């Protein structure tokens, strides 16, 4: 598990940036147009995302395009998915218990 990934996705602006560049590679200017923050702030977020290896840079002419490293995102997904499964298994047992409790209540009302 790469701990840095969690720092990358902890910030709401960074999550929004991730969502944007998941669709297509974008320049910092194009990304900044989608936010009310300064271009500098967006650059700072991009630097953190780059350091966490969640995004990669590609030079095209004078422009730098940022794109998402899908495989890195999958690491987070897998990690959360494992955690989610543990809860879901418990919750399925809770479903069974609740069905039973509801039936019991019904029977008691009849009596």
């Amino acid at each position, binding site marked *: 598990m790469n701990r840095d990934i969690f720092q990358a996705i902890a910030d709401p602006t960074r999550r929004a940036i991730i969502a944007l560049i998941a669709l297509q590679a974008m320049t910092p200017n194009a990304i900044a147009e989608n936010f009310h923050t300064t271009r500098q702030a967006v650059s700072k977020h991009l630097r953190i995302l780059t350091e966490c290896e969640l995004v990669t840079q590609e030079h095209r002419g004078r422009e730098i395009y940022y794109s998402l490293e899908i495989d890195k995102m999958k690491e987070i997904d897998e990690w959360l998915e494992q955690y989610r*499964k543990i809860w879901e298994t418990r*919750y399925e*047992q809770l479903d069974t218990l609740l*069905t039973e*409790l509801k039936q019991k209540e019904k029977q008691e009302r009849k009596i």
Partner: protein
Amino acid sequence: MKPAEASLPSETDVLVQRSFDAPAKLVWRAYMEPDLMRRWCGSTPGWSMPVCEMDMRVGGQYRWRWRSDENGQEFGFTGEVLEVVPHAKIVHTQIFDPGDLGVSMGGEPSIVTVTFQEADGMTNVATLIKYASKTDRDEAFATGMTEGMEMNYKRLDEELAVMKTRAPVV
């Protein structure tokens, strides 16, 4: 039921949400009464729950402990109740007790807030776990808890797959 959702709302938090087809007062009981709690938290295949003590009043303590059928290894959670709003909310501290799984974790307790919201006879349960630090949170998942249980969930997945082929899903 729609499966549970897990997300990371901030650096130190984990949020798990799930809806249940029952009124809040029944779901509440399943969280408050040790005998009922044991039924859904202590029936994971491969694990027994030898300790399930709960005094769910403000200032009260709880102690949950699980034991592996396979090798007898144990781990658990303990904590203190901070806030109780009947049928709506419970807040408690939580400290991971590594038992003999051999994994030590940060000593600072996490804060667990469980909220129950009823609508149209369904109850949404949101569990927010706030760790003392980001490091604590990341470690909590990287270590014992998930590792120790993963094997068993795999086994459960297999069992569930078998059950699904045998019986129609109700």
